[in-house]
């Protein structure tokens, strides 16, 4: 089907495009911008005057809960929610049950995602067998099966020698290692930032040093092994500065932050609000500002949802007994637009952090509207106000602290390979 998307403001940060123009799509690809290709017979036209046309979003960190936790969510339910959120490529982590540590699990996820057909699903495979932190996973097999990187997610690798070997082996397979800077011993089973709020509420605290001390060790090993490394889900201003310094020193590192860390702090836990129980924890106002600065100066190249859908019971307990995580797909673009409203980023840079930025880290052909690239497109109406309510969520996880927030900017269409996979009702 040949499709013309007319009169929208097309923003494609990777190509420096920001103008009101037309896009022409055929054979699942972007064929041309501004003028139609020769002999282009238009089957369908989307007149999107007053709307903004951007590359489909790339979300670096999503838990689909499959295999193993289908009572929380499924690949079908969450990729459908992703499409409604303008996300056309997402990356899931290996901490499923069983862990994604062999081609069998990779293929299972790929097949179910393909069958659902809402979103491209990329996979980060396990760095160690079963994520147990003891022996290496079969990284070459994982790569051959399609994994775009390896990670031990939030599972500890207690022995630094194992971590060093894992990094070396990943480097020789040319796989990016995705690392959570999180020292489990220092975290000491805490459930909130070690600060004024945890002290007031008597919650076991996770010090900022759980992140920075881990990061110091990781940076030393990255330098030693020469592995291409990506730091996942930074939560402290100091860690953001450490990434900036490491990049300046010439290390091949990148970093991301999840969107909620740019809007929420420890104070939001307030009256034991379990929806604000996250890992890494919500930190201080100064950390939030430091992370925003890291995003603005580009040392944090990607912003992700860190989507973690939960069943209702997971959050219905005293705070320390609840499971951490936020159902975050459907607020990702809205929070990005709010960063623009609040003057943290200009619009093209904000778009870049959720498109070309993460695509570059993952090394995938996504996040741009370049000629010849897959026609993965998100179109939104920038002036429409809406508020996030539980009944509007498509994700099976209703666990978001943003319920009741009013946002500006609403997605009208999501296209995956030129096909409309979501259209606003």
């Amino acid at each position: 089907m040949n499709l013309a998307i007319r009169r929208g403001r097309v923003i494609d940060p990777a190509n420096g495009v920001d103008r009101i123009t037309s896009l022409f799509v055929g054979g699942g690809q972007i064929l041309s911008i501004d003028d139609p290709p020769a002999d282009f017979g238009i089957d369908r036209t989307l007149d999107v005057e007053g709307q903004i046309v951007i590359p489909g979003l790339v979300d670096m960190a999503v838990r689909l809960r499959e295999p193993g936790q289908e009572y929380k969510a499924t690949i079908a339910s969450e990729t459908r929610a992703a499409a409604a959120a303008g996300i056309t490529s997402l990356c899931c982590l290996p901490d499923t049950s069983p862990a994604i540590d062999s081609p069998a699990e990779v293929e299972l996820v790929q097949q179910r995602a393909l069958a659902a057909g809402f979103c491209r699903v990329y996979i980060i495979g396990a760095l160690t067998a079963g994520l147990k932190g003891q022996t290496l996973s079969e990284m070459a097999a994982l790569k051959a099966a399609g994994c775009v990187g390896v990670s031990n997610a939030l599972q500890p690798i207690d022995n630094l020698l194992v971590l060093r070997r894992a990094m070396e082996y990943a480097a020789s397979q040319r796989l990016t290692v995705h690392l959570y800077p999180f020292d489990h011993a220092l975290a000491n089973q805490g459930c909130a930032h070690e600060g004024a709020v945890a002290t007031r509420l008597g919650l076991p605290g996770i010090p900022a040093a759980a992140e920075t001390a881990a990061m110091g060790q990781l940076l030393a090993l990255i330098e030693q092994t020469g592995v291409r490394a990506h730091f996942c889900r930074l939560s402290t201003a100091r860690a953001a500065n450490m990434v900036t310094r490491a990049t300046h020193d010439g290390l091949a590192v990148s970093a991301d932050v999840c969107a909620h860390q740019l809007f929420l702090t420890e104070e939001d836990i307030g009256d034991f609000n379990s929806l604000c129980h996250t890992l890494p924890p919500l930190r201080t106002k100064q950390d939030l500002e430091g992370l925003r600065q890291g995003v603005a100066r580009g040392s944090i190249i990607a912003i992700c949802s860190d989507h973690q859908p939960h069943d209702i019971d997971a959050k219905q307990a005293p705070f320390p007994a609840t499971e951490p995580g936020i159902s975050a797909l459907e607020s990702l673009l809205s929070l990005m637009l709010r960063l623009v409203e609040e003057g943290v980023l200009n619009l093209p840079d904000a778009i870049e952090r959720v498109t070309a930025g993460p695509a570059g880290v993952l090394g995938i052909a996504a996040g741009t509207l370049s000629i010849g690239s897959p026609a993965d497109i998100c179109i939104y109406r920038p002036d429409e106000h809406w508020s996030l309510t539980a009944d509007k969520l498509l994700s099976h996880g209703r666990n978001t602290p943003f319920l009741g927030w009013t946002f500006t900017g609403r997605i009208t269409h999501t296209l995956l390979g030129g096909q409309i996979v979501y259209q606003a009702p």
Partner: protein
Amino acid sequence: MSVNKSLTALSPPGPLSADIQLTADGRLHHFLTIEGLPRTLLLEILDTAKSFAGVKNQAVKKVPLLRGKTIVNLFFEASTRTRTTFELAAKRLSADVLNLNINYTATVKGESLLDTLRNLEAMYTDMFVVRHADSGAAQFIAKHVAPHVSVINAGDGRHAHPTQAMLDVFTIRRHKPDFSKLCIAIVGDIMHSRVARSQILALNTLGAGEVRVVGPKTLIPVEVERLGVRVFHDIAQGLKDVDVVMMLRLQKERMQGALLPSEHEYFQLYGLTEKRLSVAKPDVIVMHPGPINRGVEIASEVADGARSVILEQVTYGIAIRMAVMSMAIGARAER
């Protein structure tokens, strides 16, 4: 004393919503934490307790205030002393009491906390007295119970133990009625202590002159200054000229967590002895929430000495719990 200067520019953390604890007309419905409760209400609890403190001397130690009411002691964590005083308090108010000691590990495996609550509610109970190992458990239960049920927090994790704090300030008030002139030192494991957190809040709400916390850095939570205390790591400085010393129990497992080297060294540095006490005011009183580890946090000569009011605390604990229970159920009965 260690005050982090960079923090003074920040606004203090917002108080918990008092709404859940109070009725629309400002009377006690749940008693979960001291935080957010007005001074007048704390004074009302103390005054009500004073009227109950005489009941123990009557031949028949009962008043009929809660006749026909059912109170459930819901203990998810072992306790003898607190549960017993709550039970005694309820019985002196003529309520029916049901004691449920719920093995926490069993609830983790099977029935959820909410299911347990629903089942008990269905038995038409009027009040839950709750102890739980997780901070925030009492709040959670109060948010989910039926409107006719009151919840009293008998200790949740490291968060709060408000009846203990009230019986402590009641005891202080019997000896030293003017709080504005008092200097009070809380000594020991502040980090893991729900008692200390509630004491700090109660003392500050009642306008205490100065509240100090004394202990090694491993047992003092970060930014505790923002709760309105001065921090001392040296006990000689911390006890200087104080009117009240509130000792905290030291749990033996703190040695395993690398928080302290040994009980011996702890006693050498922070154990309360007559000699240490000599820098305090001459009429200083010594308190302890019990049970006491003699020779670990306090010497027997002090615990059993003339300045100790430790056994008074136990006695007043019943009056305070009678006051809180009768106020919480009374507030509802009159609505």
